[in-house]
Structure formats: structure tokens, C-alpha cells
């Protein structure tokens, strides 16, 4: 075990004019957890890859990167593979074999361990993660969260001294990512493994880091303990691109100009709010305004008593779903993995054909749209995996094949901030960029109804705001937007209506405020903080800060 010391590290990719990393220095002490954060393109992934000898990027490099006394690139290869474990973003792609058991043995087999030693290591790893129940399952039958835990366990079976993680929870739903982070924290706390990870979702992990390194344009913009860093950065939110990703409690602290210790978790945030609300002061919680009764409209999508299953002998995935959506609204379908969200979108899009029930699109039975006429200007969908839409050599060709005129293509590219990416091959783009390109393709369908399946996967917090603004424009133009998403925070800020998909049934869409005010833990962090002062309907940091500043809570 040893410290990792980065000193004056600069790096430029072969052939690139600009440095991707510039003069980076920090120390990740043995047994600590270092969180690297930064907006997309800040160089955090490039930095992270320098820690794994086998993946060190090619290019021009100055400065040093040592593990103990040795430069990481000069580590003996077998030692490097054993001491440094790696987990990356996509759970599927890192898995080599077809079942959990062999996957855990994979690294041990590569390094030539004896059978007895390997069995013991796998046994204790399985025990540590409690994965006995799916040890003999085929990889293909596991959920994304389970697959990512398998990746973590496979790395841990080699007993690494350092774990390097590149946005390991970006593709996971909130519950799975909380489980993953809990496992990671246990490894750090109970086994003393040094952890270096980068993430854009900071709400869960931020408070647990020993050290946070904030990168911007390849340089260190700030470095310190989470509390120091949050307190410092929250004073000037406009200077910090990562601001929206910070924990809700810290943003609230900044927004009301808090003094003293910056709260980081929901618990601390609640204590902070309660201290703000002076003792004895009576809270008069604003009565949630009655949602304005919308003028009677014609529904754009309607499901009536829909039953659907994938296999004739399988279970019904949709179980008598009833659902009505109107134009000019953003509707979010929330719910866990496997609750039927994607299936419901497939049914609305006509690619899943229900065995019972009726679907109406613009008040016409979906079956009456013959010969693909449904997909010509009426309905378009964004799939869960953006890669399913890419068939061309460049992003530009991808957009042009949608048949819009050049000015429209350019407008959409600008709107979604992908103009710079157009000359690139779609699959050379990062996960978030692929998502943007796929969304651009879908928008070029110029439809009335958009079905978006997990559209926020891999997007950073700043871009989520851009995305929210684009959705608003579309809704104002009278389009119908239906999102299936795990992202509670996004839904709280942007949805008009929310509903929950559970056990194959869709709840009736409620106005977002009403929906979240009625939930207890399935609500954004800021709402759980605001409840401490009785503001059950608050859904954004700004809203709560305004209330606290106006002292709305005193009589």
C-alpha cells in the first residue's frame, strides 16, 4: 500500500494542439477516497486513465505520477494488474464471460493463481457482496445494477490496493447506484482500499469523499475536503459549471448565503433549515395552489385497459394500464427497473402490440395508422440505447438522413449544442454526446408526440438544464412529451405531470407538485430538506431559498 502522488502532470493527446491536462498536482493518500469531478470534457476521464497502466493514453506527457516510489507506467505489468482495479461506465461492456461465476475467476486465471487460492478469493468476494443468489445466473439475465456489482467484485477478487472508477453509476437507476456506492464505501472503509473515482452525479457520493478535485478545462479549479470545497464554491455559483450537480443541501446553503458549516447531506440540510426557521415561529405552509384547471383538451395519447406481455407464457408486463396524456404537457413516467416504463412507451409507440386493450393516438385507434403513417410527423421515439439509431459514418450524415432541410438541421444541432460534434463518427462520441445526437435525430422527425426513454442517461447536470429548456420549447409549441425516467430531480423541475409505473399499472398522472408533495421518499433531495420546515410542495433549491429569505415561515 502506498500513496498516489501526481505532480505537475500535463498531457496532450498525440496530434492535439492543446493540452488535455495541464499542470495537475494532488496526492491521493493511502486508504482515502478521492472524487474527481468536472463537466463533460473537463479532462477527468483522461486523468483517470493515467492511473491504470494498461490504459494510459498515448500522447505527450510531462510531470510525474507515482505509486509509492514507482512511476505508474513503470510498474511491473503483473503487479499493476493486481494492484489497480478498474470499473468503467458501461456495465455490459466490461463483462467478458457469460456467467457471474466465470467472470469472477477471469482475472485470477489471467494472473495464474492456483485453483485453491482462486477459489478462496472468489468465495470471500462473493460473501462480501452477498451475490450468492445470482452467482450461477447468466450475465444476460441480470439487471444493470447487478452487472456493475459483478464488475466491482471481479476487480476486487484480485485484491487491489487501488480502485479506479470512471463514472460507474452513470448508467444505473437511483436505487442501483445507491447500492453500488454503498458497496464501494464499504470497500474503502472496511478494506482500506484507496479509491479514485469520477462522477457527475454528486448527491450521493459527495459527502463521503475524503478529498474532492474539481477539474475545469484540464486544470484543477478547486481541491479540498467536500465541506471546504462546497462552502467555497457555493458562494459564486455562476462561476462553477458543476454547480447544478452539487448536493441540494449545499446549493441551498449557498443560495441563502449561509454561515458556518456547509450542510452536505439531506439530514444536515434539514437541520440547517430548521435552524433557519427560528424556534417558536409558526410555520404557515403555503397551501399548494390548486393546479389551474386546464381547458378541456383532446387527449393526444390514450391507453385503455391495456395488457401486454412479451412471451405467450410470460407474465403480463402491463396489467390493465389506463393512461391519458394531453398536448402541450411534459409527462414523466417514473418507476424502478422492470416496472414496465419502457414497455408502456413501446405500447404507445406501436412497437409493442397489446393482447387486450385499446390505444388511441390523436383520438384515432393506433391500428388505423397504416403503412408507417404513424411515424411520419405524428409520433417519434428516443430509444433507451442511442446506439440503436446510428448507421452512418458521421454525426452530420446521421442528421441529414432524417431529411430535414439544412437550416433546420443546423438549428437543431445548435439548440442541442452538438454543432462541434458533427464531423465525428457517432460512436467516437461519449455516452452523453451520443444521447444528444440521438435526441437530435428524433427531433428532426418533427412529430406531434415524442416518447423519450431514459433521455437523461449520461448527461451532466448542466446539460440537463439545457435539455429541460428544449423540452419546454417543444411543449410550448403544443407537442406532447412523454418521458420514462429514473431521474426524480429532473422530473421535479421540468415535468407538468408525473405518474408512477408499478406492477404493470400506471397511476393517473398528477401535477408534479401534487405528486411529489404526496410522496415520502420518492421525491428529490431538496423536497426532503424542505419538509423539515413544512414546505411539502417545494421542488427546487431556488424556491426554498426564496421562501427562507422572505421568511415566509414566520407569522
Amino acid at each position: 500500500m502506498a500513496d498516489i502522488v501526481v505532480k505537475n502532470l500535463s498531457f496532450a493527446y498525440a496530434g492535439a494542439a492543446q493540452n488535455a491536462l495541464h499542470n495537475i498536482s494532488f496526492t491521493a493518500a493511502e486508504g482515502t477516497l478521492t472524487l474527481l469531478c468536472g463537466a463533460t470534457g473537463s479532462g477527468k476521464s483522461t486523468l483517470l486513465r493515467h492511473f491504470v497502466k494498461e490504459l494510459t493514453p498515448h500522447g505527450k506527457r510531462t510531470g510525474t505520477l507515482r505509486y509509492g516510489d514507482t512511476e505508474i507506467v513503470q510498474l511491473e505489468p503483473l503487479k499493476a494488474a493486481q494492484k489497480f482495479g478498474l470499473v468503467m461506465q458501461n456495465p455490459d461492456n466490461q463483462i467478458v464471460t457469460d456467467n457471474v461465476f466465470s467472470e469472477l475467476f477471469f482475472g485470477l486465471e489471467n494472473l495464474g493463481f492456483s485453483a485453491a487460492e482462486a477459489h478462496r478469493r472468489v468465495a470471500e468476494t462473493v460473501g462480501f457482496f452477498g451475490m450468492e443468489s445470482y452467482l450461477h445466473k447468466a450475465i444476460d439475465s441480470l439487471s444493470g445494477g447487478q452487472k456493475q456489482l459483478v464488475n466491482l467484485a471481479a476487480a476486487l477478487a484480485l485484491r487491489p490496493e487501488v480502485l479506479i472508477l470512471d463514472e460507474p453509476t452513470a448508467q444505473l437507476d437511483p436505487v442501483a447506484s445507491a447500492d453500488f456506492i454503498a458497496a464501494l464505501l464499504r470497500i474503502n472503509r472496511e478494506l482500506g482500499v484507496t479509491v479514485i473515482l469520477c462522477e457527475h452525479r454528486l448527491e450521493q457520493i459527495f459527502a463521503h469523499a475524503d478529498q474532492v478535485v474539481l477539474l475545469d478545462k484540464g486544470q484543477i479549479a478547486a481541491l479540498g475536503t467536500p465541506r471546504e470545497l462546497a462552502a467555497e464554491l457555493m458562494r459564486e455559483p455562476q462561476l462553477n459549471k458543476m454547480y447544478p450537480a452539487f448536493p441540494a443541501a449545499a446549493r441551498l446553503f449557498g443560495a441563502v448565503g449561509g454561515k458556518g458549516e456547509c450542510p452536505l447531506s439531506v439530514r444536515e440540510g434539514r437541520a440547517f433549515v430548521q435552524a433557519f426557521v427560528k424556534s417558536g415561529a409558526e410555520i404557515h405552509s403555503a397551501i399548494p395552489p390548486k393546479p389551474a384547471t386546464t381547458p378541456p383538451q383532446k387527449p393526444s395519447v390514450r391507453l385503455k385497459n391495456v395488457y401486454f406481455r412479451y412471451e405467450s407464457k410470460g407474465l403480463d408486463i402491463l396489467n390493465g394500464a389506463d393512461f391519458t396524456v394531453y398536448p402541450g404537457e411534459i409527462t414523466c413516467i417514473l418507476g424502478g427497473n422492470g416496472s414496465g416504463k419502457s414497455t408502456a412507451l413501446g405500447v404507445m409507440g406501436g412497437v409493442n402490440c397489446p393482447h387486450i386493450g385499446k390505444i388511441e393516438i390523436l383520438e384515432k385507434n393506433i391500428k388505423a395508422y397504416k403503412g408507417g403513417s404513424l411515424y411520419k410527423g405524428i409520433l417519434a421515439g428516443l430509444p433507451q440505447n442511442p446506439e440503436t439509431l446510428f448507421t452512418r459514418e458521421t454525426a452530420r450524415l446521421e442528421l441529414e438522413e432524417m431529411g430535414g432541410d439544412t437550416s433546420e438541421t443546423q438549428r437543431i444541432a445548435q439548440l442541442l449544442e452538438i454543432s462541434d460534434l458533427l464531423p465525428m463518427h457517432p460512436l467516437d462520441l461519449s455516452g452523453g454526446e451520443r444521447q444528444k445526437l440521438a435526441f437530435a435525430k428524433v427531433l428532426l422527425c418533427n412529430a406531434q408526440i415524442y416518447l423519450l426513454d431514459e433521455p437523461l442517461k449520461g448527461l451532466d447536470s448542466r446539460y440537463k438544464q439545457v435539455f429541460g429548456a428544449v423540452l419546454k420549447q417543444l411543449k410550448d409549441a403544443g407537442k406532447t412529451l412523454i418521458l420514462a425516467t429514473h431521474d426524480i430531480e429532473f422530473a421535479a423541475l421540468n415535468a407538468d405531470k408525473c405518474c408512477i409505473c408499478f406492477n404493470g399499472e400506471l397511476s393517473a398522472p398528477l401535477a408534479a407538485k401534487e405528486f411529489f408533495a404526496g410522496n415520502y421518499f420518492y421525491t428529490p433531495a431538496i423536497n426532503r430538506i424542505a419538509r423539515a420546515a413544512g414546505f411539502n410542495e417545494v421542488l427546487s433549491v431556488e424556491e426554498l431559498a426564496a421562501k427562507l429569505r422572505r421568511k415566509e415561515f414566520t407569522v
Partner: protein
Amino acid sequence: MNSGFGLQRYHAAAAFMFFAAVIILTAVTVHPAYAAVSLIGAFFYCIILKKGAAVKFFLLFALPVIILFTLVNALSVSSGVTILFYLYNPVTLESIINGLTLGGVIAAVLLWFYAYGAVISPHRFLGLFGRVLPKTALVLTMSAGLFPRYKRRLKEVKRAQILIGKGGGGIKKGYRNLAALLSWSLCDGLETAASMRARGYGLKTRKPLTFKKMRASDIAVLSILTAFAAFLTAAFIAGAASFTFYPSLPPSADYSLFAAAVFAAFALFCLLPVILHTEEVLRWRTSLLKI
């Protein structure tokens, strides 16, 4: 983890040895009695292993094979002296029995393969041969993971393309879907490679480890099976199981004590999986009663 009995529980080498021997021995002998016992042994073993599914397999594949061979042989071969009736050509009893035997042999081999599938999973197979062919074993286990994934993805691509108005049938659309799947999957391969290298792949010779230890009971069963197989092979080479259908039945077969012993050994060999399995199931049941 093992939930099976008999050959499912013993070391894969024992099961593999048995199936290799029984399939080859069945296939090289065209003798009505041998075909019959092999068919019976295979049929009952399949039923024990797969229950109703085995009956379905028998009715859909094995039985039609028997009928087909019998019909074809009866109608096309007119050798033999016992003419039963005429259908363009004379149809003889010898030719029917010959067809029935051929069909029985093929059906028995099919059923043995069916049982093989239930007893030796791809993983047990790899565990057995992984050490001899480490690279092949890795490629096989990787492909086993990729096939279901690609299948699922192709479906996903089709649906996604429909939803942006680029769906539908036709070769051109099919090609588009395949192109999307291929470039997506190739790109993923890069990340898989990175993950493999980070876990030390290619640094030294890979040593597959997921094999099972041979226990004393495995060695005992394997020795018994090998002894049977060796004896039967020698006896078959010596012609103990030869049979002639033409020109006439009753056959000019060997009715010596030796021939009877060989037949008994073969019958016992074919029934061995059923016996091992049932014996263990019974032992398990009695162990429950003792509690």
C-alpha cells in the same frame, strides 16, 4: 452448485465418457435387440431428466425417424424371403425389421444426445476441456455471453428504427439494422478489451480454473464406465453383436454364452444412468424419512 443426481452429479469426465461410449457403440451396431435396449435406456433416462419435454421430443423427433426409416426401407429394399404383400415391389418382413432397427439406432442416438444436453451443460464441457484448449474455451464462453446480447440488441435496433420512421421490412432496412448492431457491438469490444487488459489478460499464459476436482467416487464410476466401454468395444470388434437381416429371419446370429454376456453387459451399460440416478434419488428419499 449441483441439483442433479447420478451422471449430473459425478465429474463431467465420467458423464462425457459414458455418452461418447454409448453413442458410438449404439451407432456402430445394427442389431434389433441392441437397438431396442439402447432406445429403452435412452428413453427412460430422458424421461427422468426432462419429464414431459422428453416425451414431446420423442414424439416429435425420435418416433418419426423410426417410422420414416421403416417405411423407406420397406418400400425401397426388396431383399429377404418372407414376402408380406406387394406394393409395386414385394414388401418383405426382413426389410421392415431392418428399417425398424436402423430407425431405432438413429432414434436412440438422438435421445442420447438429448440427454447429453441435459447432463453436460456448456459450462461442464468447458470445465472439462478448458485446460487442454484454454483459448478456445475463452472464445466459447465469450461467444456464449455475446449471442443473447446481440439477439436482444437486434430487436432493440429494429424497434428504435421504426420509432424514427426508418423501420419496416426489406433487405435495405435489414442491412441498416445489421449495420447499426455491428458498429455498436464493435465499439463495445474496445471497452471489453480495456477491461480485460486491466485484469491482466495477455500478461502470461492463462490458466482456466473453473474445473471440478476428481473425487474417489468419480474415479470409481469413471473406471467402471471405462471397463464396460473397453469390454464392449473389444467384443463388438470380435463380432459379438453382428446380425444379418437377409436373406431370411430368424437370423444367423450368435447364440453362444459369450454373445449373451455381451448383450447383458450392453443392456446394463445402457441402463446404468437410470440405475445410478434412481438409486441416488431413493437414497435421498430414505434420508428424508430418517430425519
